[in-house]
């Protein structure tokens, strides 16, 4: 399914491209266009920050990139494959292996412990229990949660919950990390912690990261900033980052 695995890696490889993507929500009689002809290419090992006012279409764009939704018009190519060609179940498997999500509200399953939450994506991939639980524990320990693995989300602080959700995202070793306002619910110190963590995954582990944020202070961690307004890209800016 995945074509370019054996090709030599190239810094400028295009990982993701949106070609004239529209998303139109039917709202009763009227139609609300949330995205109006987005065309953009995101390369492997980019750290992209998507900024823009509330309602400008940032989350809508993230959902499309994350294969959680399909465009009304236009094409989305992920690793050279048109995602609209996938069957629903292939898309789910592909999504599970390729993309990791970090949500603003953490979106942990409240009835499962931190450990069980992190195990979940591996279980969907039918990875054997021993490997899976070893991986999950390693990652939780790496994120400083070794002593919290049996806690339920409700027994953790916001920052800890977000770290659990990051562990859940990383445990499948995804190529792309999608983070929709990952620090939105956290105080600025904890938020900065989280961002620095993402920055490290990008820099040291070569992950491609796409992050939505309101905060221009956080946007400067990214090497590319895309600004949306009323469903259109009004600016793409390359940043200097260390």
């Amino acid at each position: 399914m995945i074509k370019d695995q054996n090709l030599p890696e190239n810094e400028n490889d295009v990982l993701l491209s949106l070609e004239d993507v529209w998303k139109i929500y039917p709202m009763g009689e009227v139609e609300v266009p949330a995205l109006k002809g987005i065309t953009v290419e995101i390369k492997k090992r980019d750290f992209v920050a998507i900024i823009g006012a509330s309602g400008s279409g940032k989350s809508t764009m993230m959902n499309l990139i994350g294969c959680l939704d399909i465009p009304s018009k236009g094409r989305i190519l992920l690793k050279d494959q048109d995602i609209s060609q996938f069957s629903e179940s292939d898309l789910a498997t592909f999504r599970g292996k390729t993309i990791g999500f970090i949500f603003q509200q953490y979106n942990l399953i409240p009835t499962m412990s931190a450990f069980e939450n992190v195990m979940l994506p591996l279980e969907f991939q039918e990875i054997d229990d021993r490997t899976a639980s070893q991986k999950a524990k390693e990652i939780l320990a790496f994120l400083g949660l070794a002593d919290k693995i049996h806690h339920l989300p409700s027994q953790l602080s916001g920052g800890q919950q977000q770290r659990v959700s990051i562990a859940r995202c990383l445990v499948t070793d995804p190529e792309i990390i999608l983070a929709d306002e990952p620090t939105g619910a956290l105080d600025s110190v904890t938020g900065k912690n989280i961002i620095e963590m993402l920055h490290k995954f990008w820099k040291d582990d070569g992950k491609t990261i796409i992050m939505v944020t309101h905060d221009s202070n956080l946007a400067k961690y990214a090497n590319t900033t895309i600004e949306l307004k009323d469903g259109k890209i009004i600016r793409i800016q390359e940043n200097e980052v260390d």
Partner: protein
Amino acid sequence: MKLSKCLKHALNMVLHSKLRSWLTILGIVIGVASVIAIVSLGEGLEQSLTEQLGDLGGDIITITPGFSRGGDIRSGGDIRFAPEGTGAQATDEETVLDRTDVQALRGLPDIELIDTQIRGNVDVSYLGKSGSVSLTGVDQKVWSLITTNEIREGRMLNSADQNVIVIGGGLADSFFDQPLGINKVITIEDSAFRIVGILDDGSNSIVMPIQMAYQLLDDKEKDVYDSLVVKIRDEDNLDAAIEKIENKLMITRHVTETDRDFSVSSGQQMNKMRSEMLGSMSAFLTAIAAVSLLVGSVGISNTMFTSVLEKTKEIGIMKAIGARNKDILAIFLFNAGLIGLAGGIVGVILGIILSGVMPYLMSDIPLARGGTYVSVDIILIALSVSVLVGIIAGFVPAYQGSKLRPVDALRYE
């Protein structure tokens, strides 16, 4: 996701479900409990009937005067256990069985023995206490060869016997203040009789030579019988023998199929009748139970719709991290099956308790006298049906949940 994992997550969901959703398993609980109780009652009844009727003897035929379409519910042996008046007396009161009939039957080669019997109620007294019991007068030469009753103590009647009786175990043990034993003398309608045998049963009955019985039962005419009990030579020819007896008697009594005035029945026939009765009764009760299971399944369906709705967000999360539709479907189906199973288990426990106390609560109802019996089979059947009901009831909501689009599900609050 592996099915075992789906089951694990489903179990987790069940364990974390709210009290409210537990209430909806009530329908299943009631359905299963009533099925267990009903079936245990039926099986208990069947067992006690088999015990009672099992030794009726396949070679015994009873002939009684009168005829009704319903047949004759009377024991083929000696002691009737059906309530007074259950016998067929639909036709003319004048119809009787007498010596002519006996003569006619003697001509049939299929018949080995004929016992002539009369019945009535008599007053008995012993050591100043008295009461009324049923008396059967039998042809003492034949009775011991035909009867299916067993002797517990003493002996059967024999041809030389005059003023002696055989009594039922109940009469011997508990009818009077003091138990009766062999060679004790009791007074029946002012005459003294010596006990020579005690039957191995619980009845309050007396068996004595028919000639003595005629003297005690004033309203009985000599050589007129209340029933003829016949033993045939070959058990396998029962049906043929019954037919021959019927044809012979119709000829000698000058009646036809339409105006016949006597009934012929066998223990086998009665067994069949009883089990048919039982069958239709339990079919009726099972229908009631099925309705409550149906109500239960609506409850589960309702719970599942609510549960899928409540878990919409979680479905979205799971889909985002790689769950396929069929994973979601499996988790929710297992969940529904487990809810059904939980209802089934509670129902089985309740049903066993119910079937334990039922015989005491309904001791006045003849149906409950047999006691109850809960078999492993019925428990397994009940549990599998509950799981099945759960899964069927949960299918539509689970399917809907599995079809949710990830964006929509994630947006749900």
